[in-house]
């Protein structure tokens, strides 16, 4: 790095108090940080909602929340975590890292990038304003019609939900187009598609999933809006509409959405595990093909959310078999991570712990998914706590662990100082133990037939003890979050060390200063292998010398 660039670095980026420059920014790194901070706030909102639900369910007959408020809270919990927390957290990492990792100076369309962020922020605030304007949406995050029609949902909550989803869909679509164009067009010399970091591949596949699946959600909510506001009858069976149409349209988006949430986390883990194992990612090509296969198959399994709707047997069999098929590419990713760890020089840092936590918890969630793909079992378990357990092992144990792995891993790059390792490990263990306390008993409750989304239950069914354990677990997770927040403020108040390469990394983002200057690289790097920084640090053992 040249001294000139260093001098510029000192004066330019991240001057605190310079709010206007953050509001006007089109720098992908600043937008990435805005995404991460905003999404973390929404993550806290969603977490508070979850905690309120757990308090309500701690004992039978509790009256912490009214039934109506409980419905609003679980709807907003799901909507928040999926659309306002996990997706934008992943988008934040993507924004920050994709240009750095491919050796570009910015995204292809920086202004569009800013538009995407501000639309997201507005949509989130808009949805939350509904709590104060006559009641939040209360029909669950997948908002099944005809429950969502005027007749059954007369408040404006659903209208807030519809408009918010439309705005978020717009924000995600333009953001995804930006990712795709950036990755196709702006790679540094030598950064061929087969040399791109696995995280960039994950973002690439995710962006395609979003571009192909969000239109289906847009259609669904637009038709619902027309039903509610213009008197159309798309979901009104009496007038020639179809209630199932909503489910098909929603889940044609909804299942790819699951992979939109999890693939970026898989990408993060595929960066973290190799670095802390001191080895390149095992079977890189297989990992990339597996991600692409997950992307394709993700579009063909949507009706496994609808097994209980009375579909023909052949349809059931097709969607069940197809769902099993997805385990194959997911398994490829797992074995790649295991083989990367195998005989590696392991360093059990906090990011590594969170990545290993991801792998184990996601495995449990994945196996639950296989159970639910078995049609007769699904008939028994659908709409019980078993499903709630499955989605949380995948999205909390999976996506959120992956995202925290990324936060600990890239924090030194973004902030120029590390997050404390001791508190970080405390955070990890509180999360790991807490989540198993909350979500493991849900398997039992599901098998015992406790339906999801009920606001209370009678005593004497054997559900009390597990519900109490879950509520205690929720408290343990909450302490974990508090530890993280304390750790964040302690770390940020320490003097910056500005290490360029905090973890002895492999990829290009560690080649520039921490935090990077607005233009990322004083000189656009050129790339000869999948680990450009390794090559630079170990010229004798450079990867490109090993390749033919």
């Amino acid at each position, binding site marked *: 790095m040249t001294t000139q660039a260093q001098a510029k670095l000192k004066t330019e980026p991240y001057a605190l108090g310079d709010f206007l420059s953050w509001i006007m920014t089109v720098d992908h790194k600043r937008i990435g940080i805005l995404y991460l901070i905003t999404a973390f706030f929404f993550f806290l909102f969603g977490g508070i909602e979850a905690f309120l639900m757990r308090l309500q369910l701690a004992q039978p007959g509790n009256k912490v929340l009214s039934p109506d408020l409980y419905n609003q809270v679980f709807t907003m919990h799901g909507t928040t975590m999926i659309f306002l927390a996990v997706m934008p957290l992943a988008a934040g990492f993507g924004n920050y890292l994709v240009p750095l990792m491919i050796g570009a100076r910015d995204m*292809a*369309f920086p202004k569009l990038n800013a538009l995407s962020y501000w639309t997201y922020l507005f949509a989130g605030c808009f949805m939350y304003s509904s709590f104060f304007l006559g009641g939040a949406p209360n029909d669950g995050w997948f908002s099944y019609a005809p429950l969502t029609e005027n007749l059954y949902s007369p408040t404006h909550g659903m209208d807030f939900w519809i408009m918010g989803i439309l705005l978020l869909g717009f924000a995600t*679509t333009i953001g995804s*187009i930006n990712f*795709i*164009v950036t990755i*196709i*067009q*702006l*790679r*540094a*010399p*030598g*950064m*061929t598609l087969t040399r791109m970091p696995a995280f960039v591949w994950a973002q690439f596949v995710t962006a395609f999933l979003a*571009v*192909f*699946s*969000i*239109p*289906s959600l*847009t*259609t*669904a909510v*637009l*038709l619902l809006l*027309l*039903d509610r506001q*213009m*008197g*159309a*009858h*798309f979901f*009104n*069976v009496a*007038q*020639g*509409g*179809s209630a199932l*149409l909503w489910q*098909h*349209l929603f889940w*044609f988006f909804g299942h790819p959405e699951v992979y939109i949430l999890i693939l970026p986390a898989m990408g993060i883990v595929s960066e973290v595990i190799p670095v802390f194992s001191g080895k390149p990612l095992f079977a890189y090509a297989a990992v990339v093909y597996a991600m692409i296969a997950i992307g394709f198959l993700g579009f063909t399994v949507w009706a496994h959310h609808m097994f209980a709707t009375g579909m023909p047997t052949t349809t059931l069999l097709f969607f069940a078999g197809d769902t099993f098929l997805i385990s194959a590419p997911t398994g490829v990713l797992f074995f790649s991570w295991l083989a990367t760890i195998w005989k590696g020089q392991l360093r059990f840092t906090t990011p590594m712990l969170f990545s290993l936590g991801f792998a184990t918890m996601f495995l449990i969630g994945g196996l639950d998914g296989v159970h639910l793909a078995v049609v007769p079992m699904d008939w028994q378990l659908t709409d019980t706590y078993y499903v709630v357990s499955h989605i949380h092992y995948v999205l909390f144990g999976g996506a959120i662990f992956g995202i925290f792995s990324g936060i600990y891993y890239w924090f030194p790059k973004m902030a120029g100082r590390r997050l404390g390792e001791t508190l970080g490990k405390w955070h990890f263990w509180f999360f790991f133990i807490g989540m198993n306390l909350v979500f493991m008993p849900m398997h039992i409750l599901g098998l015992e037939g406790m339906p999801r989304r009920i606001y209370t239950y009678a005593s004497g069914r054997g559900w009390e003890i597990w519900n109490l354990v879950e509520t205690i677990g929720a408290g343990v997770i909450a302490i974990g979050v508090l530890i993280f927040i304390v750790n964040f403020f302690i770390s940020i108040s320490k003097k910056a060390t500005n290490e360029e390469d905090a973890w002895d990394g492999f990829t290009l983002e560690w080649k520039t200063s921490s935090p990077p200057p607005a233009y990322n690289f004083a000189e656009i790097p050129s790339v000869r292998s999948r680990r450009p920084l390794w090559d630079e640090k170990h010229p004798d053992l450079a990867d490109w010398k090993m390749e033919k």
Partner: protein
Amino acid sequence: MSTLSQVHPMSRLSTGKVALFIILVSESVFFATLLVAYAALRDQSNWPMDHSLQRLTFPLINTAILILSSIPARNAIINIRAGKQTLSLTSMVVTLIVGLVFVAGQIYEFSHAGFHINDQAFGGVFFTLMGFHALHVFAGEVFLILNLTRTKLGDFSPQNYEAVELGTWFWYYVVGVWLVLFAALYLI
């Protein structure tokens, strides 16, 4: 705009064209899901549109008008490539006007459909598909107006006219979508 037509070292494609292509793919999924909704609902309510020639005459004329508008849209590219800025400008104006004639025809068609958006499921399907197509015609018109203004400001040259191409491609897309919708709603 040099950034749009800039060709980058690892890719021989143009950024603007890649972006437009992906936008159109996404748009196509949107129309496809609307058509799926149409297909799913069609059997469930009495489909009121009759396929007699008398009923079809006006929509056919309107279809022909929209197809013809793609000729001046194409001429806008050919002329700017040949350095004939004024002719290119004229082509865009003609496209714009013919497009507006189509929209006027659509409004006439809507008001003579004999049913409303709240008449059973088919009313919703018909006006939703038609309405979103009309919105795309408007988007195409806005694109044309931007290009018109920029041509007048001298932004384009025979070497640099990518936005004109993109505008025309979007117009082709609007015409193409119409043909699919016309076949689906009027002919099948």
